[in-house]
């Protein structure tokens, strides 16, 4: 997964138009995020040809996360042509299937 941060977010996410971009917002203290991580990596193996996978460490990029209106972890966002197309907030993420269901919608 591509690690995005305040320096490359614009280029890699907002200005990227080839395929939809998935961003996994996580943090050092977010146990649930860390538990989900290996499974999200597996999703990349499965859907990586259709979706671009990125992760963003909010502990190091807090301002950027807030600017993207992320205020709880884990949050997963799909961007299409630099626009937010769908957001999963923490209460909507129980298992990796919830994430996979969102990703699938953008695979057509």
């Amino acid at each position, binding site marked *: 997964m591509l690690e995005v941060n305040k320096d490359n977010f614009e280029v890699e996410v907002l200005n990227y138009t080839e395929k939809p971009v998935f961003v996994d917002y996580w943090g050092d*203290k977010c146990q649930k995020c860390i538990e989900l991580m290996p499974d999200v990596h597996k999703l990349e193996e499965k859907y990586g040809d259709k979706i671009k996978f990125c992760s963003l460490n909010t502990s190091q990029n807090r301002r950027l996360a807030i600017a993207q209106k992320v205020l*709880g972890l884990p949050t997963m966002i799909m961007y299409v042509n630099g626009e937010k197309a769908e957001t999963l*907030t923490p209460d909507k993420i129980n298992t990796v299937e919830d994430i996979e269901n969102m990703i699938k919608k953008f695979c057509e």
Partner: protein
Amino acid sequence: MSHIYDIVIIGGGPAGLSAGLYASRAKLDVLVIEKEKFGGQAATTAELENYPGSIENCTGPALVERMRKQAEEFGTTFSKDEIVEVDFFDDIKILKGRKEEYRSKAVIIATGAEYRLAGFKNEIELRGRGVSYCATCDADFFEGLDVAVIGGGDSAITEALYLTKFAETVTIIHRRDSLRAAKSLQEKAFNNPKIKFIWDTVVEEAKGDEILESLVLRNVKTGEISELAVNGVFVFVGLEPKSELFKGKVEMDDRGYILTDRNMKTNVEGVFAAGDVVQKSLRQVITAAADGAVAAVAAEEYINEKFNK
């Protein structure tokens, strides 16, 4: 036919882990089933200063991780699954999980409790977007920002104090004119320059475009409406038992807390309950752990009488 455990414990919080420890030390074949995260609510609290002996490294996650290891060392087995249906009718109890079906001679219900919603407008819409129920999970987003805490009990004040390590200001909004929290906590809060209080006030609405920007407040004495700009609000207004699953199966009070005797027996033979899900006056880690120990020993006695004669 699937394996029959001596005891299956539903819930891996302090009550379930302590029951697992006691049961496995008695050489019983015991399984703890947890749907989310071992440690339960205790794994979400940063400061656990009132559990005897937990002086060094007294964070909730550290304490419950030690509890889990200790139970494991004596032979407790664990499963990550959610129980969705129970059948307590026969001598062998049947528990249906999302992944598997489990059978046992005795069951200990240790499903705990869950935070209650405060009930203001947009609370659910802005959850995870500034509205939070877990300070340890979300606190570091709010470094240098302004947050509010709703509530006046021990949890609210403990978490407010924790939040002062990150936030610029922490405004405690309480519906009464005095706190219910322990005196020592109150003192710390009153002496903390980052903490402010708004008394006799409830939150009516959360406002914000995608993320929380402000709270609409109403003074319950004067009826006056005001607005408070905050980036985050943490809700600690009490608990609700997680006992939905057992409605009509074991006796409970009208709020859903399970009724037990002093040995943590429910009204159903072979079914015990422990921890926050039980009707009692003090819901803490120490009382949950104590309940778990009592329930495990009572279950052991029950199994010996019923099955090993």
